[in-house]
């Protein structure tokens, strides 16, 4: 029995999670292409299957059967390792996100918040190593840009997380969703949401902060030398990161797996579906931003972070501390 609880159940849960996330990734690409097409008054993919629903499968088959090319002067071991290192953090961050009442995806640890911070910290390895090991100047420049961007935006992100943590009063994400919040807490949290979302956009290298892969300056940035399934892994990492961060935002700001006003709170199996609905709405936000906002220059990106976001985040944290001490 010990083995079943210790090993079998977590493995089954992980496999289920990975299957769901990979399917989610495949259909997120479809969702994005369809939505972008609509924003630009086009129709979008409509050839493979009804409404183009089989398009992701066609794309996957294409990526798998492409020729594998490894640059001659690349550091082979690191070159092969980098796509995997990009994908793994996006998947394992899910371990602590609650999917239903009292049910975390894998484990309820008392350092849930810190787990998110820790994994966010190692997310940049895949990109740095990909850029360096390809032995290509565009790749290296893209990687340097990207890691500088991710490390910089991690700062305000971490400070915002600390503020949420102080409001929640505990490190566990499972108990965070269950803890009732006062009305001023919700308003105070939602005031911060746009800034938090900007940090997340930069962390996931999504448009308008996709400077690591600006095609007019850097070809494709860190992934220039990657093709076939290895490129698909980077692609997968980016999109699964979008899903993951949406789930985190849904958990932190919008009550995770719960319906508003405690509706149907006893129906436990409803949790994952509610969470999925919230994730889909937040993903729409990602794509909406991509369709409507232009890319800033690199120095503007950095200035915005260091001269605006970080001071604001620190101020927010100080006010949150005062609110927590005096009102809770």
């Amino acid at each position, binding site marked *: 029995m010990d083995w079943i609880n210790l090993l079998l159940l977590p493995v089954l849960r992980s496999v289920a999670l990975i299957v769901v996330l990979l399917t989610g990734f495949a259909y997120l690409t479809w969702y994005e292409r369809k939505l972008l097409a609509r924003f630009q008054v086009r129709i979008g993919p409509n050839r493979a299957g009804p409404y183009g629903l089989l398009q992701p499968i066609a794309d996957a088959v294409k990526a798998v059967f492409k020729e594998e090319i490894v640059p001659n002067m690349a550091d082979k071991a690191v070159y092969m390792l980098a796509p995997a290192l990009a994908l793994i953090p996006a998947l394992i961050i899910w371990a602590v996100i609650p999917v239903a009442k009292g049910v975390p995806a894998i484990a309820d640890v*008392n350092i849930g918040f810190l787990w998110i911070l820790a994994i966010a910290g190692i997310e940049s390895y895949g990109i740095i*190593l990909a850029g360096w090991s390809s032995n290509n100047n565009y790749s290296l420049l893209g990687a340097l840009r990207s890691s500088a961007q991710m490390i910089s935006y991690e700062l305000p992100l971490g400070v915002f997380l600390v503020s949420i943590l102080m409001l929640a009063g505990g490190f566990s994400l499972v108990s965070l969703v269950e803890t009732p919040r006062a009305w001023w807490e919700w308003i105070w949290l939602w005031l911060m949401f746009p800034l938090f979302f900007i940090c997340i956009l930069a962390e996931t290298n999504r448009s308008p902060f996709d400077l690591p892969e600006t095609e007019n300056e850097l070809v494709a940035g860190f992934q220039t030398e990657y093709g076939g399934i290895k490129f698909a892994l980077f692609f997968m990492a980016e999109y699964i990161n979008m899903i993951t961060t949406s789930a985190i935002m849904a958990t932190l700001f919008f009550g995770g797996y719960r319906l508003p006003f405690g509706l149907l709170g006893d129906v436990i199996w409803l949790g994952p579906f509610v969470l999925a609905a919230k994730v889909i709405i937040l993903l729409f936000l990602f794509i909406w931003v991509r369709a409507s906002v232009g890319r800033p220059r690199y120095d503007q990106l950095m200035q915005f972070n260091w001269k605006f976001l970080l001071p604001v985040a620190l101020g927010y944290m100080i006010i949150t501390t005062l609110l927590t001490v005096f009102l809770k």
Partner: protein
Amino acid sequence: MSASLVFFIVVAAVSLTSALGVVTSRWPIHSALFMLVNFITLAVFYVTLGAQFLAAAQVIIYAGGIVILILFVVMLIGSEKIGGPSGHRLWTPYAGVALGVLMLATMIYTFASSLFGAPGTADAIEAGHPKAVGMTLFTQYILPIEMAAVLLLVALIGALLLARQPKAGAQ
């Protein structure tokens, strides 16, 4: 053999192999990556010992910060094979041996004192939780914490001063 022992042996093997990799690898980038693996196995050990906060801090600070810094340095100042003429300094082996002896002495001292000291209690196991760590750090060790904070601030200002571009008019 219990499951936790098997787990320990596997993680320890990975940890030792990666530690060997750090010192035997010919490429600085590979050394840095081996060091990353080593740091992460250390974090796993902390978790098994009930020190979750320490484990998270280990990954955030060492894996997320310091190894990335090392990678940056290696990438920007070149990453030729170790063992070239630039790597030969007369005092390097002696300094290495001295530091090794110092570390061994510290480890022996720690082991010896824990052998004869009190065994781990429930309080000691609880002490790894974030709240307990925070309470200890900000009551008993408040002075060292503040001093470390000031030290980091001084380092930050120093770095700013060094990196600042001289004003156009001034010589």
